[in-house]
């Protein structure tokens, strides 16, 4: 996989995450569920920041950043973070230097963030082939 392609698939995952966390945040009561609301808002902000950075990075490399879909299915079980982790891990394998470090940080951030919604740590977040789920 090329670096550009890995960046594009990571961006696609971030687009989906921004959408899903946005929808969930909009459906969550800030007063009735403040912790959940805060977690969703933080996730939304983090993914939006990464989406924007990836968009700029891909454009700087001379490619057209993949666009967001008009809408995404909001999963019954929040596995949006899992997709982000998978793609960030793939990006790690297909980059080097500063970009790889950025991907590792994105993976770590997503791994910690999913705990707010799921609660169960994994042995190797983002590397499905090594784990039973």
């Amino acid at each position, binding site marked *: *996989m*090329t*670096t550009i*392609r*890995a960046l594009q698939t990571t961006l696609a995952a971030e687009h989906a995450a921004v959408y899903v966390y946005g*929808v*969930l945040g909009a*459906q*969550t009561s800030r007063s009735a*569920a403040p*912790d*959940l609301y805060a*977690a969703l808002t933080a996730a939304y902000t983090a993914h939006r920041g990464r989406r924007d950075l990836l968009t700029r990075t891909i454009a700087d490399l001379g490619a057209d950043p993949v666009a967001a879909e008009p809408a995404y299915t*909001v999963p019954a079980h*929040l596995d949006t973070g899992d997709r982000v*982790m998978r793609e*960030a*891990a*793939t990006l*790690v*394998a*297909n*980059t*080097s*230097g500063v970009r*790889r*470090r950025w*991907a*590792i*940080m994105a*993976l*770590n951030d*997503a*791994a*910690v963030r999913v*705990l*707010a*919604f*799921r*609660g*169960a*740590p*994994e*042995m*190797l*977040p*983002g*590397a499905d*082939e*090594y*784990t*039973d*789920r």
Partner: protein
Amino acid sequence: MPARPHPLSLAATTRRTAVGVALAGLAALSACDASRDEPSAASGVSASADPDADLVSGLSDEMTTLLGLAASIEATYPRLGPSVRPWRELHEAHLKVLGDDSTPAPAHRRRFAGPDAALRELRQREQRFQARLVDASVSAQSGPLARVLACMSAGVAQRLVPQGNATQLAAG
């Protein structure tokens, strides 16, 4: 219940051999990726060249040391078992992924300043090791190895989060 790793199928007899076999396994994993349409800056593991062997060997040593610390804490303060055991399981799983299936040294009681201090020491060393895994991932020559090390760093990062903080997701 934490997920369990699929250990690589290894017939390694020494750590050095195990690391080589693990790297070969990662290379095979990379080769199986049909979508890889050109070599990246970090792709391609050659077990014969073994450019990451020292890196992996060093990480295995550090994991084994952490395992020993966790075992000592548990041996000294058995009631801390529930807090310490997940760290042992994590590092044992990671060692298996790296191809190190050597038997850990037996746990010995050790003098700590107290149970809180013992847990604090473990946590501080795990934090340092998590940063070490990040750096190791950045410096790995092999893309697939870098990916696995990054995922290990994420696994440690998750364990460093105090448990029981999950919020109830009630969408809709």
